[in-house]
Structures are given as C-alpha cells and as structure tokens.
C-alpha cells in the first residue's frame, strides 16, 4: 500500500491507516487520522523532510515517519 513517502509534489491523498506505534502522537493530534486529506507541498533538498498539508494543518515530518502512514492517492484531475 502506498504511503505519504510515495506522494509526488503537489499530489493529494486520503489517509487510510496510521496505527503504527512509531508515529508521534502529536502528528495524530494535528489531524493525521484515517479519512483525512493530505497533500505534499514541498520537499527539502536530499528529499527530506516533507512539507505537508494534513487536514488544513501545515506540518513538516521526516521521510521515515511519512513511510509509516498508509494512504490512497487521489486520481489525477
């Protein structure tokens, strides 16, 4: 299953699963919960960290965390 780490720049997706215990709780509290939207806004040099819009919250997380959050990528418009 694809994860946030697989998103391309500007691509949107819906969060499916984020039950891994390695995901910081703070991220869940910011809205990283199943059913919510996520969009990749920017990627820092060396492809890490990722700048995301998760359910209207603007957050940066590292690639290893992003790889734990399963998503369903929205079809291209």
């Amino acid at each position, binding site marked *: 299953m694809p994860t946030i780490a697989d998103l391309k720049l500007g691509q949107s997706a819906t969060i499916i699963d984020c*039950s891994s*215990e*390695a995901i*910081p*709780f*703070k*991220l*869940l*509290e*910011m*809205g990283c*919960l*199943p059913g919510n939207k996520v969009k990749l*806004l*920017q990627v*820092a*040099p*060396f*492809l*890490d*960290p990722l*700048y995301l819009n998760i*359910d*209207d*919250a*603007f*957050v*940066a*997380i*590292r690639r*290893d*965390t992003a790889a734990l959050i399963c998503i369903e990528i929205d079809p291209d418009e």
Partner: protein
Amino acid sequence: MSKQINVALIGNPNTGKTSVFNALTGLNQKVANYPGITVDKKEGLCKLSRVLKAHILDLPGTYSLNASSLDENIVIELLLNKNNKDFPDVAIIVSDVENFKRNLLLFTQIKDLEIPTILVINMADRMSAKGISLDIPYLEKVLKTKIALVSARKNTGIAYLKTLISNYRELSLEPCLNASSIDPTYFDQLQSAFPNQQLYKLWLVITQDVNFGKINRQEMDVAVFKTKSKSDLKRLQQKETIKRYQFINNVLKQGQTIDLSKAKDFRATLDRITMHTFWGYIIFFVVLLSIFQAIYDWSSTPMDYIDASFAQLSEWTKATLPSGVFTNLLADGIIAGIGGIVIFIPQIAFLFLFIAILEEIGYMSRVVFLMDRIMRRFGLSGKSVIPLISGTACAIPAIMATRNIENWKERLITILVTPFITCSARLPVYLIIISLVIPQGRFLGLSYQALTLMSLYLIGFGMAILSAATLNRILQFRSKSFFVVEMPSFKVPLIKNVAITVVEKTRSFVFEAGKIILAISVLIWVLASNGPGDSFKNASTIVKQEYVDLDSYQVDQKIAAYRLEHSYIGLIGKSIEPLIRPLGYDWKIGIGLVTSFAAREVFVGTLATIYSVGGNNPDTLKQKMSAEKRADGSAIFSLASGISLLLFYAFAMQCMSTLAVVKRETNSWKWPLIQLFGMTFIAYLISLIAFQLIQ
C-alpha cells in the same frame, strides 16, 4: 480590599497566546523559573475592576494534554492539582482563526476537566482575508463556553475578554465530551474503583507520565489500576482523539463557513520562496549576514559613547570626591565594573531584536525545514538550528531550548556543541581585540573588522558541527525520531511583542550576568590594590630609586605597573604565565582568562580594572591596551596574540553558568565535565598552533 483570581492562559504554540498575555498585562509582568526546573514561568497582573484583579499565568504552548515534553508537563501538572497555589479559577484557551479546528482539541480536553473556561479566538482581524466566518452564538452554545473574538494586533476584544474574566462564575462547567464513550467497560471499572474522582482526570493520570505530587498519589493510587498495556492505552488515546475530532467537525459544520474564493493568501508564495531548494539557503545566509553587520556597525556608536562616558564619570568621581580607598573603589572598581556591563546593552538588544522579529514572522520553522536533513548528517536535528542560533545570544537559554528536540541523542549532541556557538558574552572580548589587532579597511563594502567577526561566528559554528559529527560516531545509543514541525503562517511582527522580548532579555542580562560581573570586578580591584610583602608596599621608593632620570608622570606609570605586578592578582597571573606564554599571552591576560570563568565578558571588565588600576590617565580601555608592551618593546596585542586570543575564546569552555545548566539538563556531571575539558583542550591546542604560525 480587592480580590485576586488566578487565570491560566493555555493554547497551542503559534496562536498569539503571548500577544494576548501582553495585551492583558502590559509591562506588568515578570519571568521567573518554575521551582527546580528551567522552564520560564511568565506571570502578570491585570486589573479588572476596582475590586477585582487577575493574576495571569502564561503557560507553555501545548497541542493537547498528552504531554511529550517537560514544558507540556507543566500544563497538566497544574490543571490536575487543585492544591497548587496557581490552580486557575478560570482557564483561557487561546485559539486562532486559521487553526481553529486543531485548537479546539485542547479546548475540549480542558473543558472535560470541568474547569471554568473561556475561549479566545485570536487574530480575528484575519477572518475576512481568509474568507472565514463564525457563528459565535451557536459555537458558545454547543461548546458550552463564552467566546471572545480578539485581535491582539488591532487591540480589539481585550476589554470584552476582561469582562468575561470578571464574570467567571457564570461559566458553564459542563464537559463537551463523555470520556467513557471511548471504552465504556474500562471506564466504568475505573469510575467504580475511584468513585470520588472525576473520570477524565483519572484517565489523564493513567496515561500521562507526570509528577502529580504526593497528595494526588494518596488520593488515587492508580498505578495498581494500570490493567491495560502501553499499546492498548495508546490505541485508546488515538480513539479519544478521533472522537474529539468527530465532535469538533460536527460543531464546525454549522458554526464555521469558509469561502475559499475570498481567501487572499501569500502563504503558498512565501513558502515557495523561503523554503526553496536554492533561494531558501541564500535568503537564510543573507539574513544571518545582515544580522552580524548590524550588530557590528549599528552598535559601535552607542558603545563608543558609553565607553567614553564611563571613563569620564570615573575621572570625575576621582576629581570630586576626597581621595582615599573608598573613592578608588568607587571609581576604579564599581564604576569601571558597571561600565563593563552597560557597554553590551546595544549589541544584546540588537541580537534579541532580530531573533524576536524572526520568531514573530514565523521564519524560524522554515529554517528548521531547510536545515533538518543537513543537520541530521551530523547527528543533529533541524530543531537544533534554533538552539544554535539562540546560542549566539547565550548558551543557557539555548540549551534550555533543546527541550523540544524529542530524540535524546540529537538533543544531547545539541547540548554538548551549543557552547561553541559565539554567545553575546564573547562579543565584547572579540570586539575589543578585533578593534586592536585587525586593520581598518573595506572589502566589497564590508569592513575587515566586520568580516573577522563574521568569520569567528562561522568558526564557532563549524566547530560545533564538527564536534557534533564526531560525537555522532562515538555515542552509541539508538532513539526514535519524533520530528513534527508545525509551519505557522507568516505574520507581520507585532512591535509590542518584539519590544517586550528585547527589554526582558536585555534586562535579565544586565541584572543576572551583571551581578556576577560587578562582584568580580570589585574582587579583582581588591586583589589588585593589595599585595603581600614589602615590594608591593614600598613600590614607589623602589621605582624612584631605579628610574631617577624620568619625569614625574612616567615615574607614576612605572610605580603603578610595579604595584600591579606585585599585587595578589599579579601573582596569580604570573603563576599561570608559563602555561599561556606559548599562546602569546602575558600574565595580565592570564588574570583575564581566570576571571572569565565566571562569565566570559568579565575579561573586558578585568582588563578595564587592571589597566585603570595600573595608571591614572583618562585614556579609554582600548588605548591603554594598545599601549601595552612586552619587555622587548613589541605590542602585547599583536596580530598573532590577538588571533590566538580570539580563537581561545571561540573554543574554550569558560562559563560556570552553562556548565550548571548542562548538569541540570542532562542530569549528570559526566557531560558538563566532558565539555569543560574537551573544549578547553581544543581551545589551547588551536590557539597554540595559530600563535606559533602567525608569529
């Protein structure tokens, strides 16, 4: 008699909580430490009416009551302990228009603790620009609270907020959510085991690893009730969060409308520029460069003025008061000592001005994003950048600022290398030596002296990075990464907030560091004005016999120098001279190195005292230093010794207060001792090489 109530300000980071605090209290506030820990405790007074005053506590920013840092623990500990003297009569939750949904998570949690709660929606002036409209009466009804729409920026809504605080008794205590709906069986068990306790409070005590004080522990020994495993509890917490968001989403469906077509937003554009793979770094570099140029150029005029004024004041005191020990103590010990503190005010104020503005704009988080991957290569985190930049002001707050680095190894390395960063206490030492040994002149419009200063900052930063990389290899422990950084929206900085920060930080430097500097200045004066044996007492006879053909002014100078050499402090300096001679220093600089251990800037004060003790002419310190000669007639402060000294100050661990903070933050003497010996060894070695090469 007027009555005083306790008000706690609670809210997510970046909601403008501090602006609301400033608007309520004005300058009527103070910053202290929580007992035993180094988290800032900001409190202030707000007059509500003739008979009612509010004591306002600005709690550290937190996203929820699930604490993941020491700062956040403070919020929970306070809210769960009714016996705490600061326990709020009313809690004010500060949210902001743009992040309203997320802010409500914390609000619903506090509400569930059945504490009287007021909801502040800050930055209300941005509503129209964002196309947001809120149905306040509806929100007040479903959230069971009173809402104040506030713009701390435009100073609107504050009066209404004060009215709401005054009428705090009318607030509803009803919770928003039913905690037991997360897992009814478990919560029923919990409630029947502790029938007198509030359910949500029980849940927090179980899930949070914080210290609730003895009273609470006796009241409910929940340790025996931890029937669920850690991962079960975490799953329940996640369920709780989902439940809360369901509630919030339902509330907002009716209470909030967002018309995106009306939203005017520069955020995306600004993000694209400031976080750009290439331009982002260029911008960061330019920002740093202008800060250093400003610190050096803008503050030189006021500093020269302060320097000259204190020299005059000292002379005036000597001329006006009857001569004697007391006058000398006042003129050469105390006034010279105070002058040595006051002279840093322009630079420290400028530095904090820039740091405060960058924080207010929201730029710092962009730097975290840009730097994370690069810093991680050296065992640091993007979040280490803020401590490292704060380290340019002072290592102490910088080391305290490492607390939001969740990964212990990254945090420890940041703590260990931060003292390499050029702090403001080194600045006066650098400035005076640079102005003595580096020639005037400009290169590409920047002065050589400014470029030297910039290089010293870069060298300090480079050494920090290098040591971090080394430590990263040596230290072998694993820890998980918890890197989550919120990117706040860009804001025009609020002048009032910036001004309060600058005044507060400068004031604390002057009074905290100043106390030590003044005490040491006086101590040095005493040690320099007294000496053992006859050679100190009979200085004037000995010198006069030796130099019969000199005029009286030259003889006086010789006497003063002779006395200093045979004073107590002269003896201390001389005893370490063999050790520091290879670095190009004499015993007077040696004294400075010893006293610097209390705080580096004491070096300048020490030299000021030593040289004003050593002569009676009104030259300012700089002139006196450049007039210093070795036995062979060459200047003491030459290019070689000057650079050696600059490098020594760049690398040596010379600050007791920093060591004390590191001990407290790492909870062991091991790390501060490693810092002390490691850094001082590096400093000695590099200064030695530099002096021997340039000489």
